[in-house]
């Protein structure tokens, strides 16, 4: 299973990519939205974990681009957020994100269950 992690913060990139790889998932990392869109094309992930607040195209711009090329219908996007961003999460869901995970409260079982939920089909 191929997972694209789009996250500008090095700490979260390292932490979550390692945890996902320990579950035998094939993980690619993008450091911002611009790189994320490029890797969606090249890597063709089964699922995207998407941070919202990033430089060089934020998560909303990534979702908007995915809507334009209809990739939002075929690649599930899970938003990676922190508490205090409820409005942002609502906006992301209106743009087609399927779920959100609070990246600051480390509950890997919950994250992994959410990843499986959206990729089993």
């Amino acid at each position, binding site marked *: 299973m191929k997972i694209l992690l789009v996250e500008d913060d090095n*700490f979260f990139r390292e932490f979550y990519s390692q945890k996902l790889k320990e579950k035998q998932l094939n993980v690619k990392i993008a450091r911002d939205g611009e790189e994320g869109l490029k890797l969606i094309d090249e890597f063709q992930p089964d699922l995207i974990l998407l941070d919202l*607040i990033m430089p060089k195209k934020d998560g909303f711009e990534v979702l908007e681009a995915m809507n334009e090329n209809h990739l939002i219908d075929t690649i599930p996007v899970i938003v990676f957020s*922190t*508490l205090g961003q409820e409005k942002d999460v609502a906006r992301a869901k209106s743009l087609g994100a399927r779920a959100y995970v609070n*990246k*600051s*409260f480390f*509950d*890997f079982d919950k994250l992994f269950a959410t990843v499986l939920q959206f990729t089993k089909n």
Partner: protein
Amino acid sequence: MVNIIEEKYRVIFLHTASSYIKKLQQTVVNLINDSSDPTIIEDAYLATHSLKSECLMMQYKNLANFFLLLETLFRGKRDNKFQFTKEMLFLTTDELEKLLEALPSLVNENITYDISQTYQKLQVLSGVTVQEL
């Protein structure tokens, strides 16, 4: 909530948090010198956003709330809805300096860092309160 932050990730936190704090310090110095380059304001907003999330992950809740407040203020500044006063900027830069110095002990020796005075004073000076994490 599970708190399993292995040492290798604590080291990464120390490095990235220090880097973000230094970036913030530079922005605050620029603001004190009346430079309002939108790029550096945006960088400061992103830095405070990341610091908030990282501190919350590391369970430094008081620091997370402090950076949430700064994130809110920098977002306001970016959107031309808020202006920092020199007093706020000097208060912030003094605190960031102390925090930067204390960060290795915080991470490696688990000391408690009390930021409450600066946090409360900044809320009063800015007139902004946040819904705490």
